[in-house]
């Protein structure tokens, strides 16, 4: 854990109005994923899906430290990140449902949500694949003399794949404006970190690449935002990449088919106590926000998600010919 002051659930230097919008985003994502869960149960989602419930503070806190012109790449557990970066709820649902108006025209699905228009350059389902790709988006910024930043989410288990190593090394030697954010949710699929990784603090791996590494409480959106904002500032200033390890927890199993029976007793419960939405809401109220405003946000978020889903459900399926498009430009 970092040596920062204890978790507070809010960011000291950000206007509360803005932080209420973080709450809104987290609530929307939570409802969105609950709907996904139900859609699965109803057989409306194909393949697999991987929910980020419990990890929203990492995704929202980090993405809110970015400009819309900055880019963000995430994993198959990417609904939260892509929505946090600004993708519309309805078209995200549409993609998961395989609709023509889905973000990717129904060609990608849950694991591959992408919305270039908001800088969500992709959700990557092959472990490690995107870590080298963000080198390129970052290089473009450096090459063009702009100050855009590329942020890259990945899991704890992903730090053992070769691409991680190559990417962090090259990001550092080229001083690229990248922020690597490891969402350490304690498990890679069904394997606890300690069974696959001989060190405890993944941020320590930053030392191999001569870049700063920091471990933070990923359930405290204030801490996440502050940490990422300073890593982003560093990147913008041309000082190179940072590795941030955000400690968090997924409330659901790895994927739709996983009951997560491997969890030690009490672990989930302990983390539910630290639900990032609850923490943030509580902190906002402590900071003076009226409870009713939080409730209104929640109600509105739920309504927005429901309406978005309804729209998405009404959309047409992709045309048969569309499957032949977009192989080449």
């Amino acid at each position, binding site marked *: 854990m970092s040596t920062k002051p204890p978790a507070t659930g809010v960011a000291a230097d950000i206007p509360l109005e803005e932080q209420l919008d973080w709450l809104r985003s987290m609530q929307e994502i939570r409802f969105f994923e609950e709907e996904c869960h139900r859609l699965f149960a109803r057989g409306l989602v194909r*393949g697999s899906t991987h929910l980020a419930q419990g990890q929203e503070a990492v995704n929202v806190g980090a993405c809110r430290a970015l400009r819309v012109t900055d880019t963000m790449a995430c994993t198959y557990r990417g609904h939260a990140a892509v929505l946090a970066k600004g993708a519309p709820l309805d078209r995200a649902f549409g993609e998961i449902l*395989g609709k023509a108006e889905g973000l990717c025209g129904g*060609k990608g699905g849950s694991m591959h949500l992408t919305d270039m228009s908001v800088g969500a350059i992709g959700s990557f389902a092959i472990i490690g694949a995107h870590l080298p790709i963000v080198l390129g988006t970052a290089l473009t910024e450096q090459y063009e003399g702009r100050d855009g930043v590329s942020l890259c989410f990945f899991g704890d288990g992903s730090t053992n794949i070769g691409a991680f190593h190559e990417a962090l090394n090259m990001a550092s030697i080229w001083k690229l404006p990248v922020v690597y954010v490891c969402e350490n949710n304690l498990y890679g699929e069904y394997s606890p970190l300690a069974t696959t990784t001989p060190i405890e603090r993944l941020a320590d791996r930053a030392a191999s690449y001569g870049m700063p590494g920091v471990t933070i409480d990923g359930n405290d959106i204030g801490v996440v935002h502050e940490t990422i904002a300073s890593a982003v500032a560093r990147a913008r200033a041309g000082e190179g990449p940072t590795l941030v390890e955000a400690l968090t927890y997924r409330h659901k199993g790895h994927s739709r088919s996983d009951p997560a029976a491997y969890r030690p007793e009490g672990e989930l419960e302990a983390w539910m106590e630290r639900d990032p939405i609850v923490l943030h809401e509580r902190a906002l109220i402590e900071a003076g926000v009226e409870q009713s405003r939080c409730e209104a946000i929640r109600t509105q978020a739920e309504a927005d998600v429901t309406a978005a889903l309804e729209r998405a459900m009404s959309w047409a399926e992709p045309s048969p010919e569309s499957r032949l498009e977009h192989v080449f430009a």
Partner: protein
Amino acid sequence: MSQTITYKQAITMAMADAMEEDERVLLFGEDVAVAGGAFKLSEGLLERFGPRRVRDTPISEQAIIGTAIGSALSGLRPIAEIMFADFAGVCFDGIANEMAKYRYMTGGQVTMPATIRLGNGAGTGFAAQHSQAVENWFLNVPGLKIVVPGTPADAYGLLRSAIRDPDPVLFFEHKHLFGTKGEVEDAPALVEIGRAEVVRPGTDVTLVATQLMRLRAVAAAEALSAEGISVEVIDPRSLVPLDVATIGESLDRTNHLVVAQESSHDGSWGATLVARLMATHFESLDSPPLLVGGDDTPIPYAGPLEELWIPSVDRIADGVRRTLAYGHPA
């Protein structure tokens, strides 16, 4: 006596029987031990054979393949699992440049009895990077045996043979077939690698297919028999070695060839088969050999699109009809 088991059970049973038979056999891969495999193909093996022989690895496919190579050349008989076959992309060098060539490059100093199991194929909505027919990536790499079982009996029998084989075997298990059922003996038989099976005898056309396409080819053949068309369905079961003789013999009788494959055209095993048969059975053909395959695109996610991509029973049957209609315009 015989029993009915699933394709999935056949794979589990084959691993268990092989481990029972030979102390040198071990299994490793991501989540294959404690969790029993992402597809539950190794359920119960850890409990039965212990953590020495059934091992979880980090998410490190290059390390997994390397471990298979090194342990095989030093006397073990490793089974390594690559969860989705598509992940062969991250360890392609290990498979194609090291494992395949090791014996050759050392002038025969080593044998490489490694079995790599890979979850193959489309049809389950996993989209472009988790659905490919990855066997085609390795066709141009001499030194690998490539096995593609389509039934529980073949899954069992070929996996046992793969594990006993002194050479590296890529064993592609089709994800869409895990739940399919079939008959096997109580002590199921081994199946020799390199022998095609005539799944359904016929006289009018030779229809070659593997894995999911085998099932659809049989269904197409049944549909066509109602139209009076007699289709001989052949499953090569392994692509390297490829039993050209059995297919060629069939072609000599039927004079028409259709291949159903879950793959785009170029570089596919179907195209390879056509080229091989042309060289040896040119005179046997009364019509152009036809490949019924996937589109020349990545595999789309949406249900209706993926369904169009994968050859359906109808598309296969239609291919047969068109082939037989060749030279007889309607």
